[in-house]
C-alpha cells in the first residue's frame, strides 16, 4: 500500500525554465510534508517542508504547494539549474507517527 506516490519517474527540463515535481498521498492523517533531494552516493538532503495548515511555502527558488482536498502537493523550482539534477523524494508524516513515509522519487534532469 503506497501511501505516498510520485507517478512521474523522470522529468527533463531546460535550464532557466520551471521544474514542477508532483506528489500524491492517500492518508488524510498526514499533516506535514517534506521534499528531499538526493545525489548518487549521498544521503537525501532536506529541501523544504510544509504544514497542512498552509497551502504554500517558499524558500528561494523552491516553492511547495499543498492542495489538501486533492491530497496533492507539488514542488516548483524556478529557475532550474543544472545543479538541480538529482532524484527528488516527497515524504509525509503525521502527528500519529514519527516516521517519514517516502514516495519512490522523481529523477530531474536539467539540461543547458
Amino acid at each position, binding site marked *: 500500500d503506497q501511501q*505516498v506516490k510520485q507517478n512521474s519517474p523522470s522529468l527533463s527540463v531546460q535550464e532557466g525554465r520551471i521544474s514542477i515535481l508532483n506528489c500524491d498521498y492517500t492518508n488524510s492523517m498526514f499533516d*506535514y510534508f*517534506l521534499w*528531499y533531494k538526493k545525489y548518487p*552516493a*549521498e*544521503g*537525501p*538532503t*532536506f529541501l523544504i*517542508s510544509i504544514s497542512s495548515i498552509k497551502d504554500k511555502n517558499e524558500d528561494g527558488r523552491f516553492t511547495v504547494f499543498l492542495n489538501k482536498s486533492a491530497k496533492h502537493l507539488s514542488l516548483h523550482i524556478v529557475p532550474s539549474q543544472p545543479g538541480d539534477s538529482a532524484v527528488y*523524494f516527497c*515524504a509525509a*508524516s503525521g502527528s500519529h*507517527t*514519527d*516516521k*517519514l*513515509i*517516502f*514516495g*519512490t*522519487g522523481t529523477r530531474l534532469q536539467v539540461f543547458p
Partner: protein
Amino acid sequence: DAGVTQSPTHLIKTRGQQVTLRCSPKSGHDTVSWYQQALGQGPQFIFQYYEEEERQRGNFPDRFSGHQFPNYSSELNVNALLLGDSALYLCASSLGSQPEQYFGPGTRLTVT
C-alpha cells in the same frame, strides 16, 4: 557544524552473518531514525530511537535491532543476513518530535 555521519561507507557480508552499522547525529539533535533504501525505491522506515528507547518501529523483522547511546549516537544491527537485506541503510537525526529529519550519507550493504 557536523552533520550526520555513518560508518562504514560500504560493507560486504555473507548470508547468515551479522552486521553492525553506526551513526552519529547532527550536533544538537537527540533523535535517530534508521531507513532502508532498496534500488529504485524511496527510503523505508526501520525504527526510531529517542532517549535510548525505541520510540517507533516500521514493518521490519526482529532480525533488525538497534541501540542508542547516552551521547545520542546509534547502532543498527542485522542478524542472519539475507540476500534481500542488500540495500543502502540511511541514518537520520532530528530534534525531539520535529518532523524535519537530516540524513547521513548512508552505508551500502551487500549480502552475497
